[in-house]
């Protein structure tokens, strides 16, 4: 199985590679359109700022490429946000794979709710989906983010912080997760393993 991890100006891609290594899967970090097209599965990790990431993808025409892919595709963290329609982070037009808006957390009480949302929180309202098979009830995953995707018909799991937000999205061959499965212990490993089996 050939796994391509999309290389762009995003932080901490290395940890996704290591997580796949632990699952005994080899992946290649690449921005070569041919290699990405030829891969069996594509992972779009991410950490950083939306507008800088989008400009980088556009400059290399990776934005068009991503939308046209037909193989199972997994966006992670900023990767999820970039797959949405628009992000409030520097008013950025994103890829639009999911017709969903990305908003900033606004705590009604800053003593109780810090932004960014950092730490372990639960996945709730899990749909029947191949990505979510054999998970424990309300499993914990690790989050670090200030922006979130609003709830939509493509939401297949939610998390509660200040209010419910989209934890995982699915549409056709595209899946996307806001948390970091590569840092989410056994639950994260299970999510990645499930994706590799899709």
């Amino acid at each position, binding site marked *: 199985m050939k796994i391509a991890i999309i290389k762009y100006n995003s932080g*901490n891609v290395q940890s996704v590679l290591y997580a796949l290594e*632990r699952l005994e899967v080899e992946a290649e970090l690449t921005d070569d359109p041919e290699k990405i097209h030829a891969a069996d599965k594509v992972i779009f990790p991410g950490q950083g700022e939306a507008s800088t990431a989008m400009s980088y993808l556009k400059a290399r025409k990776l934005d068009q490429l991503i939308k046209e892919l037909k193989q199972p595709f997994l966006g992670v963290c900023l990767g999820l946000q970039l797959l949405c329609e628009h992000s409030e982070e520097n008013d950025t037009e994103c890829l639009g794979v999911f017709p969903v808006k990305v908003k900033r957390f606004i705590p009604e009480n800053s*003593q109780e709710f810090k932004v960014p949302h950092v730490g372990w929180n639960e996945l709730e309202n899990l749909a029947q989906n191949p990505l979510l098979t054999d998970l424990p009830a309300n499993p914990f995953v690790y989050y670090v983010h200030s922006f979130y995707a609003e709830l939509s018909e493509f939401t297949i799991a939610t998390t509660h912080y200040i209010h419910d937000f989209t934890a995982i999205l699915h549409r056709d061959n595209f899946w996307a997760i806001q948390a970091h499965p590569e840092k989410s212990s056994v639950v994260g490993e299970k999510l990645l393993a499930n994706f590799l089996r899709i």
Partner: protein
Amino acid sequence: MLTKRIIPCLDIKDGRTVKGVNFVQLRDAGDPVELAKIYSDEGADELVFLDITATVDKRKTLAELVTKVAKAINIPFTVGGGISTVEDVKFLLNAGADKISINSAAVHNPKIVDEMAAEFGSQCIVVAIDTRNVDGLDFVHTHGGRKATLLRTQAWAKEVANRGAGEILLTSMDHDGTKAGFANEILAEISSALSIPVIASGGAGTMAHFKDVFTFGKADAALAASIFHFKEIPIPELKEYLIREDISIRK
């Protein structure tokens, strides 16, 4: 619900864990990777590695260790100790660290916090603050708490948060090593005043101290070293206790 984090801290010298540890299942008590893996399996929510090496070759040794840890464990970890430049941060993040922590470097050159946050994002920049109470006022200290500065702790915490720190690791030098409980008063004061998470450090001695720091101290996470290393408080037991006490904790 977002949970409170339990964070063991490992002191590293020349790529080895220094403070003694007491784990029967450890084959090599000085191997940070093996210890990290045990903590991760036991349910630690994150790990902190504090490098106390003083040699010039330290960066390379540390980066090698960071890569080994990143390959072995699947929870987030922070690396700190002697980090002072954007280059240092890049080196360690590329090696596989999730976050880095800076301390004295920020005091000497506060702008470095802005630069690091702009370059790598706030989410991976932890500013560690060592504080000591002097005649009723809290002052930032450097050099492992030995050297006083004129910075007031509360004001400094606010400043680094404004400059882009993603989290604050607050160590009370008055409480560190006493096992008499965390510095809940100043922790609560700082945590309430800031919109970023605060990690409490210094003073953990009993399981009740953790409950106190998460309630009275309003801390988002609690860090400790020796009580975990010597198994005075096993992490699974601590987490069960905190859950019984209605603290939000990852099972």
